[in-house]
């Protein structure tokens, strides 16, 4: 109740036409346990107050008690859709701190895995986007294609979502002998399926009407609110860490950072679809050229970081993910902070959705591609 009172106190004057609706924590379109306190007038959204913390699991506190390889396995559980990118961020951070040079093969494998994760995440986003807009069939088409990627993961890493594949100094297993063939089959298959996505949803006149000129986010706002990933790039914010601070095998591949300045829901949608094409392109460049070599360098049994502070940025499917490790030379970190993309992206929602209708709020939230454990950590 106190929150509601506060909101009434904070508003400039009391609007008698307005009413408050709690969207969440259990609501079909908040994709988890996110609660939005929405101030509405009729159908028009006036103000949105996100309330997070319903799935706060204290990962940062837990990390202070466990060793570095164990920290990696916890990062799976934050943004579970781009688990491998999170793993990689911590692994890279540790390798940088220890000045370990990983073999070329590891870099290639990690980059391929990154892009596969990105594809899987974008596929899930696409199906959920369709479902939020009422086209329920997209959900199953997206999941159908995602299954192939999860099978690839399962064969090589042993798990489908919580991969825990990157370890300090390399990867946990070498790639499975079937890996290359499976990935190539998947690319061939998915290249055929991607145009279907466009025909089913992108081109649809109802979809276009629903998304075009909705949820505008200006470049200034995108930067000020730290909106990254395809959501930020839809506003023209060049924020692709793969381009600006390349890691792993990204310096070796040709790819385009998809940018657009329109900043509306449809642009964010389109950029993600284009990113899927780019991801396929990146994998195609790497998959045949994986160099021979070790899949990990030999590390000591107990990983100890030198004293100091280390930061590593990677590009996940949702935007920029950062790991900030403060070490005091012991075997467990002194402080770990995760900069999660969803956290910054979510709070720009008010900027985008105010003035639009409830249905648009749902569409805008979909294009932000929120994963709630990523926000709450």
């Amino acid at each position, binding site marked *: 109740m106190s929150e509601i009172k506060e909101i009434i106190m904070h508003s400039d004057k009391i609007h008698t036409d307005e009413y408050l609706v709690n969207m969440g924590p259990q609501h079909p379109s908040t994709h988890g346990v996110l609660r939005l306190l929405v101030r509405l007038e009729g159908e028009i959204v006036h103000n949105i107050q996100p309330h997070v913390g319903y799935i706060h699991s204290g990962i940062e506190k837990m990390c202070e008690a466990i060793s570095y390889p164990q920290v990696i396995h916890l990062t799976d559980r934050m943004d579970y859709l781009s688990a491998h990118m999170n793993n990689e961020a911590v692994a890279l951070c540790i390798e940088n701190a220890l000045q370990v040079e990983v073999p070329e093969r590891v870099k290639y494998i990690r980059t391929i895995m990154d892009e596969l994760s990105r594809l899987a995440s974008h596929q899930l986003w696409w199906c959920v986007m369709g479902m939020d807009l009422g086209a329920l069939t997209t959900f199953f088409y997206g999941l159908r294609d995602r299954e192939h990627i999860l099978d690839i993961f399962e064969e090589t890493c042993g798990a489908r979502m919580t991969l825990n594949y990157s370890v300090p100094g390399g990867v946990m297993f070498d790639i499975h002998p079937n890996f290359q063939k499976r990935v190539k089959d998947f690319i061939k298959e998915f290249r055929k399926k991607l145009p279907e996505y466009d025909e089913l949803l992108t081109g649809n006149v109802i979809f276009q009407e629903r998304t075009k000129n909705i949820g505008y986010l200006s470049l200034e706002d995108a930067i*000020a609110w730290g909106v990254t990933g395809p959501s930020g790039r839809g506003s023209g914010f060049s924020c692709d860490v793969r381009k600006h601070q390349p890691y792993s095998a990204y310096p070796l591949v040709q790819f385009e950072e998809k940018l657009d300045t329109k900043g509306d829901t449809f642009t964010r949608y389109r950029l993600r679809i284009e990113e899927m094409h780019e991801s396929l392109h990146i994998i195609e460049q790497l998959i045949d050229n994986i160099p021979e070599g070790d899949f990990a360098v030999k590390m000591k049994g107990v990983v100890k970081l030198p004293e100091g502070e280390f930061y590593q940025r990677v590009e996940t499917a949702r935007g920029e993910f*950062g790991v900030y490790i403060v070490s005091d030379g012991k075997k467990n970190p002194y402080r770990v*902070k995760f900069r999660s993309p969803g956290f*910054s992206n979510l*709070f720009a929602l008010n900027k985008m959705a105010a003035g639009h209708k409830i249905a648009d709020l749902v569409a805008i939230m979909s294009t932000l591609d929120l994963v709630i454990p990523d926000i709450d950590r």
Partner: protein
Amino acid sequence: MTNEELQAYLAGEFSNAEVKQGKQYIEMLVRAADLHETAVQLKMAPVLSFDYLFCLSGVDYPDTMQVVYHLESVTHRHIVVLKVNTADRVDPLLDSVSDVWQTAKYHEREVYDLLGVKFNNHKDLRRLFLDDTWGFPLRKDYKDEVRIVER
């Protein structure tokens, strides 16, 4: 601007700050009183224009609370790490930078929630994840006998 030039420029511009090359990025330790002014300068000066705050974290050191701001300039693509120590560890107080970078509004709420760092001039400083009865869990002296199992 190269890294060395940037370091020299920052050292010249902010005489009260301690500028040094860290392990990865240029680090800049400012006094708590200068924080807001420095933040405004870092963002507004055209040669610097650090307009993108990509990480804001609080660290609990034995004698002080430190808040770390990772800043990037979208136009110049250079990065600086701004650090500020609070005078008091138990009841830390800093100026808010949420009017400089909007995203700091919620990041500061997170720091307040988990570490108990209060921010002046913050419009809406409430707990973010936890409810009001919790302590500040990321502090090193935080005790929770029920939920934390020591091995």
